[in-house]
């Protein structure tokens, strides 16, 4: 059986989600949007899935691979623009060919998540947050063995480390290899993606934290999308580049890529004052200490 998966191209309402890569590769509950769809289509019986990518076909190909992880053949086809469903049918699906999944799963647009077609992902930042929270209960599939559900409404990656004094309030999702520090509060309605650090006494409520993001000690993230050093209020769509990496920053690249060493000291920066020295020492101590299991 075959299926067509159309990757969404530009969506002007959510530019920050598209900065790291095409929207189809946006991280959502531990995997990319296109990956969730391929897994779903494979479970429905598809064995050959053609992925139409008008935006960043190479990055889409790097994310989904050749489909071997789902036991299917995935073929990424670059396109000049995002085709409509009708255009995709006329271009790629020949009517005489019977070997297709039944409608509507023969041609799918990856602008929502499987099973939640009414919740568009990319209409606004608020729609992204709403769709992800609504999809949380559906995100555990038989192939996702690295997610456990220790309590109703709480999903935790098996290699996540959570301090015993941290408070998890359902519904919430803690991604794989994420660290939650002492006294931190996560939830309700919060999603922390993979490889994040939420430091001690920080709180994340009604928010989504993208992968590889550091949330500093005592920091409060509420009603927001936080990814790297970018903070977006999903209620108003206002966004902020947080200037201080000890509050919020990316863990996948140094905060000052050109000249900084690992503690953020720039070559031409003035010597730290007394209080700044104390802060740097404190950060060093925190970086060297892992939260207790």
């Amino acid at each position: 059986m075959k299926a067509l998966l159309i990757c969404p191209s530009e969506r002007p309402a959510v530019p920050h989600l598209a900065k790291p890569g095409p929207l189809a590769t946006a991280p959502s509950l531990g995997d990319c949007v296109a990956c969730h769809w391929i897994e779903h289509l494979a479970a429905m019986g598809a064995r050959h899935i053609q992925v139409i990518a008008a935006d960043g076909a190479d990055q889409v190909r790097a994310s989904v691979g050749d489909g071997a992880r789902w036991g299917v053949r995935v073929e990424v086809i670059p396109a000049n623009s995002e085709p409509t469903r009708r255009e995709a049918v006329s271009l790629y699906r020949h009517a005489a060919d019977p070997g297709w999944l039944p409608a509507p799963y023969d041609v799918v647009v990856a602008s929502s998540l499987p099973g939640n077609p009414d919740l568009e992902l990319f209409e606004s930042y608020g729609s992204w947050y709403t769709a992800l929270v609504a999809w949380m209960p559906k995100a555990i599939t038989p192939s996702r063995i690295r997610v456990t559900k220790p309590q109703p409404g709480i999903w935790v990656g098996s290699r996540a480390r959570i301090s015993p004094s941290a408070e998890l309030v359902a519904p919430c999702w803690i991604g794989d290899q994420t660290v939650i520090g002492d006294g931190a509060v996560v939830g309700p309605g919060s999603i922390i993606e993979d490889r994040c650090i939420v430091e001690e006494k920080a709180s994340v409520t009604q928010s989504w934290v993208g992968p590889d993001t550091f949330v500093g000690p005592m920091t409060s993230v509420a009603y927001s999308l936080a990814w790297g050093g970018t903070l977006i209020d999903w209620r108003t769509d206002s966004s902020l580049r947080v200037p201080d990496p000890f509050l919020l920053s990316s863990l996948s690249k140094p905060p000052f890529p050109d000249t900084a060493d690992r503690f953020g000291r720039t070559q031409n920066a003035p010597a730290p004052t007394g209080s700044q020295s104390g802060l740097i020492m404190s950060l060093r101590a925190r970086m060297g200490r892992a939260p207790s299991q």
Partner: protein
Amino acid sequence: MKIDIQGPLLTVSEIHELTAVNSASFRDKVSAALTGTTTTIEINLSQTRFMDSSGLGSLFALYRATAKREGVILRLLNPMPEIQQLLELTQMQQLFEIVKR
């Protein structure tokens, strides 16, 4: 930056950014403008487009200075959404009276 004193009201406005570059002078100038009769300090952030931890620190220093003076109110006026987000991120909105006019 403009400082205006009208009796018990001290207003600070035209702050385009509050960073490590100008936070010390901001703090010193506002502290110097405080008089014994000042009862209300209003920091107008409507033109403030950027603030870093030094800027937040200078606001906190003002908060501590006014906390020592009984009956003195410190208000932040009309912060832009980005600055409001930063205040919320650092939980400093719990310290200040934030007013939108």
